[in-house]
């Protein structure tokens, strides 16, 4: 009985903590429970969540992707630039996604072919992505009134719910399906769990690592496109700020459901917790730096639980 209880706490403790936080704000923060506020929170965490899910794919194959935020900015600038220059929205979206995917594939090849540790390789790609973003924009954001079809992607609503919420749900469900129900998913998990065993078992582990990093790039690309649409502008640093919060969401997610390992539902709850925290604190009128302090504490507390997975990803070639 107690063991069962302990196991339950191990798997769902953090989620319960998130729930406690929710209840706390519901009582202490005025307007928190307003449906419009709750939708607002869901909408705001969508970028964070999509990036976090992509990052956890890379981490599943035991590789870090520290480039997703700036790659997101690059995709934002690519998509936004094309829209700004009157190209069709379809082309702009495709180009944004492609930019993200290409960066992910390059990350994968750097890690698997050149044998550069992902911690360093993706950081280098991050720098390159930033450089290209500034090259494209000259540092000046593309702004304007863009085609409605394109703006719908990030600003639209369906049955009163922001489209962004649907994107997040679709990506979360699809990712969960891929990881848990498909062969490619379990091959990625095996690669992350025991690279050598997976290789000896006939799993193309190098390809799986490339795939994990590519998915991270692709979701970053999608986030960039969504940002361009939501903001109706494309700034060369648009997604840069999501780096730490998205990683924090994944780390927080690794303290639950499958403790010590990246998992989609965990990342989702992690992002939700961070979103609730940020929103609740603002509703309560707490000063801005408190959020940063808490974010830092969340990261430390989470990593103390899942340190081995992270260090393996960070320092193995």
């Amino acid at each position, binding site marked *: 009985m107690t063991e069962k209880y302990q196991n339950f706490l191990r798997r769902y403790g953090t989620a319960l903590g998130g729930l406690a936080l929710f209840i706390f704000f519901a009582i202490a923060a005025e307007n928190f429970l307003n449906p419009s506020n709750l939708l607002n929170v869901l909408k705001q965490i969508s970028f964070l969540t999509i990036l976090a899910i992509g990052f956890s794919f890379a981490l599943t194959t035991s590789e870090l992707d520290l480039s997703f935020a700036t790659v997101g900015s690059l995709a934002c600038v690519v998509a936004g630039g094309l829209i700004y220059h009157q190209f069709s929205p379809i082309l702009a979206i495709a180009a944004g996604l492609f930019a993200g995917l290409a960066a992910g594939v390059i990350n994968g090849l750097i890690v698997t072919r050149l044998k550069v540790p992902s911690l360093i390789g993706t950081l280098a790609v991050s720098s390159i992505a930033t450089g290209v973003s500034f090259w494209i924009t000259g540092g000046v954001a593309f702004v304007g009134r863009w085609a409605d079809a394109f703006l719908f992607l990030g600003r639209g609503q369906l049955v009163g719910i922001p489209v962004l919420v649907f994107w997040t749900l679709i990506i979360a469900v699809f990712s969960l399906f891929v990881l848990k129900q*498909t062969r490619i998913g379990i091959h990625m998990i*095996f690669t992350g769990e025991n690279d050598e065993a997976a290789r000896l078992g006939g799993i*193309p582990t190098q390809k799986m690592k490339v795939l994990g990093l590519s998915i991270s790039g692709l979701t970053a690309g999608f986030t960039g496109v969504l940002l361009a649409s939501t903001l109706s502008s494309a700034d060369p640093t648009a997604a840069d700020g999501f780096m730490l919060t998205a990683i924090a969401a994944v780390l927080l997610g690794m303290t639950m459901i499958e403790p010590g390992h990246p998992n989609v539902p965990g990342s989702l709850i992690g992002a939700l917790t961070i979103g609730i925290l940020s929103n609740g604190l603002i509703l309560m009128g707490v000063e801005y730096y408190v959020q940063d302090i808490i974010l830092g504490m969340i990261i430390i507390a989470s990593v103390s639980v899942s340190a081995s997975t992270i260090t393996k990803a960070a320092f193995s070639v």
Partner: protein
Amino acid sequence: MATLLDLKSIHKSYGAVQALNGVSLTVREGEVLAICGDNGAGKSTLIKIVSGAEAATSGQVFLRGKEVHFASPADALACGVATIYQDLALAPRLQVYQNIFMGAELTRATFIPFLRILDKKKMSQAAADYLGRLNIEIKDMKAPVASLSGGQRQAVAISRALRWQASLVIMDEPTAALGVRETAQVLDLIRQLHDQAVTIIIISHNMEDVVAVATRIVILKNGLKLGECLTENLTAAELSRMIALGDLGDRNIIRQTAVE
């Protein structure tokens, strides 16, 4: 008995280290061949070459009379050569059936070509069946491998060979680090495989085990084959002495081929 595997003058060097110096040997269908020798003799290296995990520096491998070039373990598996490694090569956090089917999952197609859905139910059933054939009881196919005993893990690893319908199973020190009872269990597993007409190559430092299950023994030393002998009327002590002295005496049934 027909020849299953034929190795001709296998050389392998890791930089300056000469791990294998021209080893030739023949494996016949249905036998249990033991490869013995001191630490660093080249046993693991030899089987890594057969299993496709490493490429030989020179030499040839023939399977059923045809020359093969295994570029990866997957190639070898496809030809029915399955290897159970010294460290078992399992993913402890994952479930029993997932480990048995690692890299060879049963799937169904979806409308997206590269996305194949796992057939978890069929895999669990088949996994239970393989383990049953080895007389091993593991109740929960969904239990993580980390929760199993050493003998049970060995069984999981061997079941993988069954999954591949391997005709040649190679085992590197399958009883190392196991207790008495579990060692007995693993030896039993090997006999089960042998009864099912699977050819087996086993590496072991435990002479008792070798004498108990092997039909023939090859002894390596410093990357060379010292000789071969049969296990009939051979005692563990005698085998130990042969390895230690580096001489098979009149037990040797084959002459060492010339060093190239």
